[in-house]
C-alpha cells in the first residue's frame, strides 16, 4: 500500500513537482520514494513495502521501458495471474504484484482490470500510445483524485498532493458541503474541494492528446425483484458463502510481512479474525478500541473472542478528551468535513497497529452492506410494515426494538415513534424510501448554514441528485436491494472506506484489507434472495448460518451493535480545548462565512451545558467543527484570529 501522484501534459520542472506531491503524502508510504518523469508525463510514488520487499520499487517500468506504473494497493490474486502469464511465456523480474499489472496490461490493455481481484488505484503511462490510464478498484477501497490545471491533467492518492500543483488552491465546494450535510458524503466525482474530483469506484480514466474519457468497468447489480433466484437452498448457499469467504480471507493473508486483524467484538470482525487465525501458523495479532462509556464499549466481547481464538490481543483506550485531541489530525487526513467522530478512534487504532510493528490488518468492513446488517435496512422494513396499517399503535413499537441504544427513543409513545420515522408518510415507491428519515434528520443540520450559503444553494437538492445517479434497473429491484445499493455505492466509498477507512489507516501507514468486499463475495451476496440476508428483523442471517461453527454462540447470535463514538460532548466540558472554542467562536465562524455565527454560538453552548444532545445537534456540532478545521487546514482561513482575544 502506498500513495502516488502524477500528471499528463506539460510541466516545466516535472521532477521537482513530483517530489513535492509525493512528500505531501509521505505518510502513505514511509518506506521508499521514487519518481519517473518523461517529457509529457510524470509519476511519483511513496511506498509501504508489503509484497516484494526488495524488488517492488515504484514507479515500475516493464522490460521495454514503454510502460510505467505507480500503484497503490494490493492485487490479491497476483499469484494465480502471474502463473497464468508465465505459462504464456512472460518473464517476471520481480516478485511483486505491481509487475503483474504491467504484464496484464500489455496483454489486455485497460481491460486488464477485469481480471484483478484487489484493492487498487493505479496510474499507468503507456508511452507507445502516449496515454495515461487511471484505474480504481470496484468498491472504492483505494482513493484517486484528479484535477485539470492550465491544460495539464494531474492526479494523486490524496488531495494534499494535488494542492502542491502551482495555481491549484483549496476552495470549498458549496454543493459538496450540502451533500455532506445531507448524505454524510459528497457524491463522487465531486469532492469538498472545488475543481478537484475523485475517480469513482470501478472506473477507468484515459488521458491522451484527445482529452480525458472515463468509463465504468464493473457495476453492482441485483436481480430483478420477481426473477427466480438461483439460490433456493439455504444450506447450499451458506456452504458456498463459507467457501468464498474463506478464499477471500486466504488471499488477503498474502504478504511478505505479518498480517493482523481488527477485532471490534461484533460478528463481522470476529468471523474474519476466526478465519485468519486458522491461517496464521505463527498466531494472529488482533487489535481493538475500548471506550470509557458503557454505551460505546465492547471490550467484554473483544476479550471473549480474543481468548476463544487465542490471539495476541492489544487494545487502545479512547478516553474522554482523546477524540478532541485527535480531531484536527482526523480532518487533515480525511480531507473532508465529517458529521461523526467515529473516524477518530480508528485513527488511534491504526496508531496502535503501527506502534505494534504491523502494517497490514484485516477488518470486517463491508459485511453490513453486503449482507444487510445495518439498522437502516430493518428500519425500512418496519416503516413499510407500518405503512400498510397507518393508524396501528402496535406496529410502531417495533422501532423501539431496532434502537435499544438510543435513549431518546426508548421513552416515546407509539404515535411519536411512527411520526419520527415518517411511518405511513413516505411514498413506498420513493427510490430513497429506505433512507428518507436519515436524510431528513441529517439535512436538518443545514439550519446552521449562513444566509449567504443558503442563497448560493437555493434550489439545490442533494437527494434529487442522488436519485439522478441511480441505475435504470434500480426501480425493478427488491426494496432491500435498493437500500443495499444506496449504502454500498455511495456511503461505503464516500465515508466508510475513506473517512473511516483508508485515510485513518494510512495516516499511520497501515493497510486495511476487507475480505467481505472481495468482488466474488459481493456478487454472490447480491444474488441471494433478500430473506436470506434480512430474515424478519434478524440481520445477516445467511452469514450467521455460514459461520456458526466458527464463533462462540454469544458472538454469533449477537445483534448488530453499530460502531459509534461519543460525539459533541467529546469536545465540551471543563477541559474544552482551545482550538474548539476558537473554531466554534463567533469570529472564526463569521470569517469562514459558511455558518450562522449566532446559531452556532447557541449550539455550542447547548452541547456544552446539556451533554444528552440529539442526533441533529450532535451531527451539526461535529459537522461545523470539522468544516471549520477543514477551512483552516486547507484554505488557510484563519480561525486563529480569536485566539489572541
Amino acid at each position, binding site marked *: 500500500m502506498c500513495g502516488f501522484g502524477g500528471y499528463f501534459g506539460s510541466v516545466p520542472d516535472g521532477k521537482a513537482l513530483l517530489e513535492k506531491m509525493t512528500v505531501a503524502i509521505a505518510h502513505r508510504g514511509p518506506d521508499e520514494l521514487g519518481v519517473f518523469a518523461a517529457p509529457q508525463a510524470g509519476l511519483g510514488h511513496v511506498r509501504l513495502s508489503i509484497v516484494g520487499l526488495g524488488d517492488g520499487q515504484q514507479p515500475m517500468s516493464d522490460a521495454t521501458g514503454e510502460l510505467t506504473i505507480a500503484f497503490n494497493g494490493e492485487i490479491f490474486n497476483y499469484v494465480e495471474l502471474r502463473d497464468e502469464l508465465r505459462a504464456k511465456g512472460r518473464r517476471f523480474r520481480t516478485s511483486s504484484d505491481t509487475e503483474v499489472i504491467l504484464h496484464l496490461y500489455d496483454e489486455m490493455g485497460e481491460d486488464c482490470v477485469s481480471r484483478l481481484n484487489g484493492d487498487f488505484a493505479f496510474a499507468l503511462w503507456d508511452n507507445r500510445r502516449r496515454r495515461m490510464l487511471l484505474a480504481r478498484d470496484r468498491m472504492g477501497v483505494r482513493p484517486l483524485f484528479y484535477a485539470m490545471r492550465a491544460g495539464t491533467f494531474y492526479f494523486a492518492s490524496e488531495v494534499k498532493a494535488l494542492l502542491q500543483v502551482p495555481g491549484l488552491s483549496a476552495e470549498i465546494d458549496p454543493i459538496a458541503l450540502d451533500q455532506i450535510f445531507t448524505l454524510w458524503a459528497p457524491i463522487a466525482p465531486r469532492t469538498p474541494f472545488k475543481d478537484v474530483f475523485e475517480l469513482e469506484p470501478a472506473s477507468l480514466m484515459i488521458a491522451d492528446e484527445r482529452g480525458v474519457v472515463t468509463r465504468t468497468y464493473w457495476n453492482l447489480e441485483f436481480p430483478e425483484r420477481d426473477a427466480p433466484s438461483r439460490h433456493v437452498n439455504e444450506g447450499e448457499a451458506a456452504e458456498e458463502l463459507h467457501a468464498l469467504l474463506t478464499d477471500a480471507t486466504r488471499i488477503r493473508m498474502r504478504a511478505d510481512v505479518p498480517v493482523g486483524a481488527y477485532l471490534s467484538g461484533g460478528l463481522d470482525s470476529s468471523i474474519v479474525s476466526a478465519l485468519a487465525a486458522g491461517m496464521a501458523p505463527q498466531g494472529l495479532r488482533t487489535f481493538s478500541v475500548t471506550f470509557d462509556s458503557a454505551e460505546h464499549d465492547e471490550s467484554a466481547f473483544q476479550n471473549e473472542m480474543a481468548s476463544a481464538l487465542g490471539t495476541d490481543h492489544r487494545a487502545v483506550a479512547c478516553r474522554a478528551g482523546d477524540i478532541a485531541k485527535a480531531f484536527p489530525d482526523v480532518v487533515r487526513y480525511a480531507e473532508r468535513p465529517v458529521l461523526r467522530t467515529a473516524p477518530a478512534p480508528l485513527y488511534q487504532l491504526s496508531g496502535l497497529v503501527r506502534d505494534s510493528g504491523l502494517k497490514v490488518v484485516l477488518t470486517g468492513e463491508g459485511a453490513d452492506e453486503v449482507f444487510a446488517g445495518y439498522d437502516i435496512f430493518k428500519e425500512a422494513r418496519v416503516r413499510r410494515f407500518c405503512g400498510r396499517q397507518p393508524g396501528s399503535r402496535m406496529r410502531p413499537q417495533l422501532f423501539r426494538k431496532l434502537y435499544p441504544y*438510543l435513549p*431518546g*427513543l426508548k*421513552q416515546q409513545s407509539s404515535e411519536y415513534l411512527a*411520526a419520527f420515522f415518517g411511518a405511513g*408518510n413516505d411514498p413506498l415507491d420513493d427510490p430513497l424510501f429506505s433512507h428518507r428519515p436519515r436524510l431528513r434528520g441529517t439535512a436538518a443540520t443545514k439550519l446552521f448554514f449562513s444566509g449567504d450559503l443558503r442563497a448560493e444553494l437555493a434550489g439545490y437538492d442533494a437527494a434529487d441528485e442522488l436519485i439522478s445517479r441511480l441505475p435504470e434497473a434500480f426501480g425493478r429491484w427488491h426494496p432491500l436491494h435498493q437500500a443495499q445499493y444506496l449504502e454500498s455505492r455511495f456511503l461505503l466509498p464516500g465515508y466508510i472506506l475513506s473517512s473511516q477507512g483508508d485515510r485513518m489507516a494510512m495516516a499511520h501507514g497501515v493497510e486495511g484489507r476487507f475480505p467481505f468486499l472481495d468482488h466474488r463475495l459481493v456478487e454472490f451476496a447480491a444474488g441471494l434472495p433478500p430473506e436470506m440476508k434480512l430474515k424478519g428483523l434478524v440481520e445477516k442471517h445467511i452469514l450467521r448460518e455460514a459461520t456458526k461453527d466458527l464463533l462462540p454462540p454469544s458472538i454469533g447470535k449477537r445483534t448488530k451493535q453499530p460502531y459509534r463514538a461519543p460525539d459533541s460532548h467529546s469536545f465540551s466540558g471543563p477541559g474544552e480545548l482551545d482550538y474548539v472554542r476558537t473554531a466554534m467562536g463567533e469570529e472564526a465562524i463569521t470569517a469562514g462565512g459558511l455558518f450562522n455565527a449566532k446559531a452556532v454560538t*447557541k449550539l455550542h453552548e447547548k452541547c456544552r451545558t446539556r451533554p444528552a444532545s440529539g442526533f441533529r445537534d450532535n451531527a451539526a456540532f461535529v459537522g461545523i467543527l470539522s468544516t471549520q478545521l477543514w477551512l483552516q487546514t486547507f484554505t488557510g482561513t484563519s480561525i486563529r484570529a480569536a485566539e489572541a482575544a
Partner: protein
Amino acid sequence: MTETIKDSVKAFIIENFLFGDTSYELADTASLIENDIIDSTGVLELVAFLEDRFGIAMADADIVPANLDSLARISAFIKAKSAVPVSA
C-alpha cells in the same frame, strides 16, 4: 393567557431548536416533526420545559403528537391541562 402560552413556547422553540433563527416562519399549525424542528431527544426537552414552565405533570399518555406537534396543539394542550388538575 393562550397568547402568552404560545409566545412562551414559541420563544423556547426558537431558542432551543432553531438556535435563535427568527427568520424561520414558524406557523402555529406547522408540524414540528415534519419540518425537522424537533427529534426524539427534542421531544423530551420540550416536555421538560413545559413541565417546568407551566407547572404541570405530563403523563406518558400525554406525550403524543396530537398534543405536542405544533404551537397550536401545545397551546391548546397546556390550556386544557392547566384547567384540569392532574391526577396521578
